[in-house]
């Protein structure tokens, strides 16, 4: 299973060079902030500086004034309050084709992004969503903000199994009902739903002032259309619907064109809504995706 690689030291070492890119990090208390090590309210003392008129007297070091008779202000390392939520699609379609291990690939990517967030002391939550027996259910991993907590995600990640249909709107409704602070939301899915479903879901996340990033995951065979039979019967793993197929010689090309059309439509929508869209097709492309696609599209820096 691919998700097991997320806890291998070699894999984690390759992630050390990456930083999760956050364009707009907002907190309820500090408002707009910049990235990186900045001064601000925190518990870790950063430096001292001379007081200037108008500065906040709460940070005046009275002990130093008593000993030195000089007004000095304490400065602290700012504590970012960006909450990173990694949403993993755990519907049944993520388990098919089985050889592609699409869900494992999605979990690996999600764990990698979570690790990047944890490395930057961001509060990271991994959430899987599925709709078994017709009811949307969100499975949450522990919230991690320190690197040493990352291994604790392993039981959660390895326990996820694909089941049920994909309903992105229902997932966002349930997620937003928790009234969490706006943060970074990374949605990893195959998006094999009606366009209206993901359009509504992503629109609602953006409307909730989340910074939304989308990873469109598909298996390698699934994306290339490895059709072995000319006469075949296919069954939708989520709906159970069966369809007889009589595949012609151009069936593969038509299939790949169909996959491309679906991805392009999703990408166009994301572009219009300022949502970062990353296409992650095929687990064999993991290195290229991590070191090429994600930085190129600004998901990591």
């Amino acid at each position: 299973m691919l998700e097991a690689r997320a806890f291998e030291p070699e894999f984690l070492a390759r992630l050390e060079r990456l930083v999760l890119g956050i364009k707009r990090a907002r907190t309820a208390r500090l408002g707009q902030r910049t990235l990186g090590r900045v001064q601000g309210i925190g518990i870790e003392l950063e430096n001292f500086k001379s007081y200037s008129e108008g500065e906040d007297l709460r940070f005046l070091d009275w002990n130093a004034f008593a000993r030195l008779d000089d007004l000095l202000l304490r400065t602290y390392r700012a504590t970012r309050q960006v909450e990173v939520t990694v949403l993993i699609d755990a519907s049944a379609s993520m388990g098919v084709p089985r050889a592609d291990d699409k869900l494992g690939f999605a979990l690996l990517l999600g764990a990698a992004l979570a690790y990047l967030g944890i490395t930057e002391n961001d509060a990271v939550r991994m959430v899987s969503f599925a709709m078994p027996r017709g009811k949307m259910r969100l499975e949450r991993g522990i919230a991690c903000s320190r690197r040493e907590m990352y291994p604790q995600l392993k039981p959660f990640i390895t326990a996820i199994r694909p089941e049920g249909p994909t309903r992105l709107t229902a997932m966002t409704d349930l997620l937003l009902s928790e009234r969490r602070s706006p943060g970074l939301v990374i949605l990893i899915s195959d998006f094999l739903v009606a366009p209206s479903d993901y359009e509504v879901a992503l629109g609602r996340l953006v409307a909730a002032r989340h910074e939304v990033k989308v990873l469109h995951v598909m298996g390698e065979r699934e994306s290339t259309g490895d059709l072995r039979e000319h006469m075949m019967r296919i069954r939708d793993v989520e709906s159970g619907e069966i369809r007889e197929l009589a595949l012609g010689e151009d069936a593969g090309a038509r299939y790949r064109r169909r996959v491309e059309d679906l991805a392009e439509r999703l990408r166009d929508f994301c572009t219009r809504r300022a949502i970062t869209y990353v296409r992650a097709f095929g687990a064999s492309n993991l290195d290229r995706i991590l070191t090429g696609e994600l930085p190129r599209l600004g998901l990591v820096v």
Partner: protein
Amino acid sequence: MGFLTPLNLLWLAGSLTLLVLIYLRARARMTVEVSSLMLFEEIGAPVIQRRMLHLDALFWLEAAALSALSLALAGLYLRVTQPITTYRTHALIFDLGAAMGARDGHGSRLDAARAAALEIVARGPAGTRFSIIGYDLGAHGSHAASADRGATRAALAELAPAAVAPRPAALKAALIRAREAAQIDLFSDRPPPPALVADVIDPARLKVHLIGAPAENLALVSLDPGTPGIRQGHCVIRSFAQHPMRSRLIVESDHGERLTLPLIMEPEAEAVVPFGPLTRGGLVHAHLETAGDALAADDDRWAFVAPGDAKSRALVLSPDPAVRDDLSRILLGINQSLTVAALDPAQYRRSPDAASYDLIVMHDTYVPGLEAPAMLMVYPPASGAGAIRVVRTLGAIELEDRHGSGPAGETLMLGPARELALPADSSVLAHSAGNPAQSPIPLVAIARDGDRNLGVIAFDVRNHLLMNPDDLGALLLTVQLVRRLTAPAHLQVVNTASYVTAQAAGSATLIAPDGNSRKLPADGSGRVGFMAMAAGRYRLLTPTGESSIYANYFDEDESDLAARPAAETPAPLPSMRSSAAQPTTVGVMTLGLWLAALAMLAMLAESMLLSRDWWSRWMAGHV
């Protein structure tokens, strides 16, 4: 169509069931789970929710292969009509009647039939087995089925016509003998009765070769030598010609007397030609000399007449005056120079000259002590008559005519008769008809009793039986018997188709009219016998001397050579219509090999389809 082993059809049901199960199983494995049908929307076939059986070419090919193999195991066969081409048996049947000896200038009709048969033998496929069957009075195979062409030709060369009219029963027997042959060729100068043929064999297998062209013939129907010095003799001559014919009738006696009478016979006329009277008795020979006469067998006749100077005496004893009168008339009819004394046995008194009778006839009575060279016992009394013992008396009996007194197979109902125990050396001229499972009862017989001839008639001749025109067979038998009794011992005049017996001390040599000789073995009583089949003089050489048997022949139908066979056959025989058709037989053709080939063909086609699909996928990079 049928099945040799119908139970094997269960294989078909089992195999097809297995095929369907395998097919459904295979179809089930082809169901592929996909993440979403939306990826296939533009290339999908019409959506169906459930489909248990998807019929395709591969399924039908496999079903065809299994069905063919199952039918082969069940032994499917067809009934086919196939021509017999090789190693068949070919029967050649020849009419050996007198008419086949008729000559039309290029040889006899039998020669023509022989030539046609030789051509058939020459053209016959290698391995064909020819059998040769002739028929006249009966059917006799002269050559068993053999592929030896030399032996077949030799057997054909030995065929010779007989001076008899062929019997329909003989033809039937010949056809029965040839029934197993694939093809039967019948050579005759007249078509066989269609009903007779259809009764025995499939007419389609019979090819009739009608031999001979219409020919003209004069026949000597009868010869009455008359009474020497008293009454003229006469010959009855019949013309079977379409034109007037000139002829000469020559009458000769063995005493050197010769009469020649020129004749002009009208077409299809009958003439009674008187001659004589002859000056002396003895053997009389009448001969027709005719230019263009096609048949020689009916041109000669012989008769024996007692010498006119010999005052023969006969005695007739019977309690019935009517019988005495009838028998006396018959005796005088046979020999007008005979002096006949007819008496009631009760009134008979032995006289000193009793021993001077030449013939004594006793009806329903027996007077011991009477001796004559010829004795005729008619309806011997129940107490017996010398060497003749009476077993029982029968109320009525049927006479079977076997010796030329009437058509074959006819019977004559007689009155009372007595079953007799005859001497061992008796020759039976006629016996009773009736149940074939029972031994026939001798009704007319002749035997040798010491130095005298003893004749026996077992049936009663009261009520003018011998004079009744409806019972002519009984009269003819009586006349024949009397003539044989009174004829010299070394001379017999018979009709052809008669069985002739003669006394011989040991074996005898018979020289036929055509010069061929053969040995005749004697029976236990020292008698030899043979069937006179040729017209003319037979010479019988015995250790005690030589005797002659003259055989006369005439048959109205056989002598009519002018009959055109085609014209006489209003409705062509099926065999004649299909004479050129190849003989066929109904056989069984098993289809196992063909079905196996069909199964292999179906499997080959299936393999080709699978290979083509594999190749196309491989070329498309999907494999």
